[in-house]
């Protein structure tokens, strides 16, 4: 079963009021901030609209990296995969999100949950790094 369902993003801009003061997880006083600026979340989160896709997470193999079931991933395919990046991969017929580890003996897919094993990708696997995850959007 796929762990991810990949979607496109509607590009219509939506401007939100931007609360322009440093928030220190205390009680922000609205009076301190300067209102007036707006922020468009698409603009803020997507630097390459043509290459950006979005996927919702199913499963909990990445919880120690802060990725939980139901979170939204933004995937920027324009980014080149590198050692340590979190990427959406396609392996043997399934999409999965894992940390990519490039070692002397090849590529490993490393989960962020002790209950899951690492996976050494070998030539028998039908494997492809589909895109690098650039942001996680989660509901609190």
């Amino acid at each position, binding site marked *: 079963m796929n762990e991810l369902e990949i979607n496109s993003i509607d590009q219509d801009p939506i401007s939100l009021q931007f609360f322009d003061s440093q928030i220190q997880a205390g009680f922000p006083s609205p009076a301190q901030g300067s209102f007036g600026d707006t922020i468009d979340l698409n603009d803020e989160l997507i630097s390459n609209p043509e290459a950006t896709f979005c996927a919702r997470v199913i499963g909990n193999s990445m919880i120690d990296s802060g990725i939980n079931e139901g979170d939204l991933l933004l995937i920027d*395919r324009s980014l080149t995969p590198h050692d340590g990046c979190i990427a959406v991969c396609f392996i043997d017929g399934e999409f999965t999100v894992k940390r990519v580890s490039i070692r002397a003996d090849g590529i490993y897919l490393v989960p962020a949950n002790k209950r899951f094993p690492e996976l050494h990708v070998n030539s028998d696997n039908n494997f492809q790094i589909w895109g690098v995850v650039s942001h996680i959007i989660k509901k609190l």
Partner: protein
Amino acid sequence: MYCLADCNNFFVSCERLYDPTLNGRPVVVLSNNDGCVIARSNEAKAMGIPMGCPAFQIKKHIGTARLNDVIQLSARHTLYHDISLRIMSLLGRSCERLEVYSVDEAFFQAPFNDPVKDEQFLRDLVAKIYKYVGIPVSIGYAPTRTLAKIASRIAKKNPDTTQGVYGLTSQHLIDSALVKTDISDVWGIGRRLTEALRNRGVGSAAQFVQYPNSLVRSLFNITVAHTHAELKGIDCTAASPVTVAHKSIMNSRTFGTLITSRNEVQAAVVHFAEHCSRQLRSEGSVAGTVMVYVRGDRYREDVPFYSNSCQLNLATPSSSALTIVHYALQAFSCIFKEGFGYRKAGVMLLNIKPETMVQLNLFDKEDHNKQNRLMRAIDHINTRYATQAVNLASTSAKGEWKPRQQHLNQSAQSALHIYSGMVASSKKKSSL
């Protein structure tokens, strides 16, 4: 040089992006209600499944035993449209004068006028599209569109030798390509014309080129004569009915200041598109193509210069402001780049014809009657009260794009008091 970018097996490639298990297997995409085959993977082509084949006849072509090997998928046009926009937007930002010809094909100009540089540029572009969007694209380039189409076909058919890019950059290359091109594969030569030409001993594009001009003109219509000339390397764009109509409607403006905000330039484009569509409706015409262009200020040394245009064909020719603005916005988002200053923008409507001549598109989802009624109502209000009493919400940005009007005659602004009157009365209500 004209370039033609053509997506390989586009609908199948889109399906494969979202489901890589389909790679390397024979896949066909079926039209609405799973009627006919509208896209085939190379594997499905190799099995002998013809384009347009009704789904129930597939087994007749490949035999019942192999039927289970073929993966048949229902079309998902919303998905294909989204992927198409991504590709067109990448092309529009990298190239000049993009003309989106269909969901998976677009013409544009090669940037360098230098065969070596252009080829490298196009190879990088093919690689970039594959990396960003995951769709394999073939690009052909040549002195005319008709030849570029032949070049892209060669690129697509010979991926191993061309790596997806092929240019007809010399007369020698053009000649040998024409010999190998069947007349039925020439752009604009359909089934009937193929038959008519075959009956006269013309079987290949090379034989067609040898055919005397005078005979082509006397036997066939002007479009065929243009195709004939384009195969000889003579660019007939200006005269071609495909791109240029008998007349066009244009609305553009030089801005009072150099604008950098996307919203502001976009608002101007929407305004121009709306204005053009109003003019169309007042003449009882419809447009088949929407073109948008933006231009910076060449004389400003502190801001980098950028200028580009993009044109899109409508599914069905229309005069509705909603439709025209929708397409103008799509074209705009294909060419707008952040980080530049804009001094001028414009919208041009092409392929204009009388409303009565419209042929409906089978795949068009718009309710045209409903839109026509809405447009009539809006035009009526605007004629009666003020030009801009009712407009689309997307035109109302800060208005930086509007011309400097410090010396405007007050009587010209009298229309505005409809606005102020409404604001005043609503304020009164809230204070009570």
